[in-house]
């Protein structure tokens, strides 16, 4: 096990985050604040509460999840795509590191950044709405697990992408719509029965539902199912990454 390599990649990626602090941290915080202004204050004033929770508070887990998914994916995808784009990937490929160690470094850094971001957004939320977290440890668990899972997903996209457009296309055209349709700003229970069934095919529903349960003990699906689905997606991403490094897909000709 080349632990020093993992630490080196991790530190390298975290240093990149610190260099781009405005883009990495400040910009998502401002976006989230705007969501609160628009959805919490403007629309929330007309919707009093959902399932016994004030609307402003209700959207907090969804908003954190929205940022967590997009930021984890984008961070990790950019982290591995950039060396491919510039050609510095040669150093990773020629170093005595395993695929697992490379993934640990990049995914660990991307997930760390996302968790920090999630916690900052949570703290920002407190400025707008009073919040009480029923299961803080579960909340943290879901936060970390989702950050890792979607950083793995982003890592895969970063290896798959053959240009900056492809790099952006999945977060923008797939993840964001899935998140918006995944119960970020509403409970899927308010949907007509048919669309409730359709929503169950959206993996984000499970993530948001489990996360929201840790805050308010209300959920669209059972928290156990949420946890199982998140872990299943994590395992799927791990298998894909293992296959990528085994075959050299998009990395080695």
């Amino acid at each position: 096990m080349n632990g020093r390599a993992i630490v080196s990649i991790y530190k390298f990626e975290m240093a990149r985050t610190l260099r781009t602090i405005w883009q990495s941290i400040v910009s998502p915080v401002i976006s989230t604040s705007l969501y609160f202004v628009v959805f919490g204050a403007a629309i929330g004033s007309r919707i009093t509460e959902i399932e016994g929770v004030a609307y402003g508070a209700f959207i907090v887990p969804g908003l954190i999840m929205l940022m967590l998914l997009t930021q984890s994916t984008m961070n990790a995808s950019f982290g591995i795509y950039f060396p491919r784009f510039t050609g510095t990937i040669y150093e990773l490929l020629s170093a005595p590191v395993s695929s697992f160690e490379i993934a640990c470094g990049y995914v660990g850094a991307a997930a760390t950044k996302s968790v920090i971001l999630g916690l900052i957004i949570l703290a920002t939320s407190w400025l707008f709405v009073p919040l009480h977290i029923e299961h803080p440890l579960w909340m943290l668990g879901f936060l970390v697990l989702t950050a890792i899972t979607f950083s793995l997903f982003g890592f895969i996209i970063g290896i798959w992408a053959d240009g900056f457009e492809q790099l952006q296309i999945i977060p923008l055209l797939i993840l964001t719509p899935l998140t918006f349709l995944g119960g970020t700003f509403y409970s899927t229970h308010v949907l007509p029965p048919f669309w409730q069934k359709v929503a169950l095919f959206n993996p984000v529903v499970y993530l948001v539902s489990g996360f929201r349960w840790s805050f308010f003990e209300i959920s669209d699906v059972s928290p156990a199912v949420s946890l199982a689905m998140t872990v299943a997606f994590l395992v799927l991403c791990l298998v894909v990454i293992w296959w990528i490094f085994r075959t050299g897909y998009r990395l080695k000709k």
Partner: protein
Amino acid sequence: MRPIMPSIISIKNLSKTYASGFTALKTINLDIERGEIFALLGPNGAGKTTLIGIICGILNASTGTVTVGGHDIINDYRAARALIGLVPQELTTDAFESVWDTVSFSRGLFGKPKNPAHIEKILKDLSLWDKKDNKIRTLSGGMKRRVLIAKALSHEPKVLFLDEPTAGVDVELRKDMWQVVRDLRASGVTIILTTHYIEEAEDMADRIGVISKGEIILVERKAELMSKLGKKQLVLHLQKPLEQIPPDIFGLANLTLADGGKELTFTYDTQGERTGVTRLLADLNRLDIRLRDLETRQSSLEEIFIGLVSDNERAATGAQS
């Protein structure tokens, strides 16, 4: 006779065909001796970078095996790669990191503990010390090339690949670089280099390998290669110009007349039992052809290289037709 050193890199039946169907390497068999400087020469597209890429783990081979220090590059890749430092042909550097950070990163990536004194030495040897806090993107091309060398040396490799290390580098920097290479060789590091500056290979290498169209067409000790394939010329500057070469002179077929009849050139084989120089000079004396001056010239490695590659290409064309 020079003792045969044990090989540090052993390449057996290596071939590479890309997904497009292009065969970059046909069955390559090559051993690199421990502690030598091996120059791999070949025209563009001959397969030099592909060969290096496979040994270093950047490309997958289609067939064959490679061991580095006795470690298989696939089954025992950690041990094999830990021995290797690679300076790639392209100037592929980070942009926003400092020189110090990027070189330290490379050391960590290879699993080595921090050693600021070693990094400092490398940067000083490569005249990068005063740039250590500079962002890489602010450096010139030559300086970036040095950064790549520093990164490759950061983990104290036993084998160093230099793929066109002096491309785009000015003369002064080149001299510094070659001094670093000499020092490395003196410390026991094996060096494999490709270069388009053949005079550099001639100056630096212990052995030369020539690759053409994906095949190693020759591997030879430089001195032996030059004496074996090198033609030598005796250039005679005449006091009075000749209208034509006397027909009864020795070595008529190997003589040419130039410079308005004032320069007579005799081409001879240095490996021959008799070069014919004495007989030629005796004939000149007999024919009362007086000399103003004389000099000898030896083929450069570049001339040898061009001759080899074009022979190989002619052979390949002949085989196809």
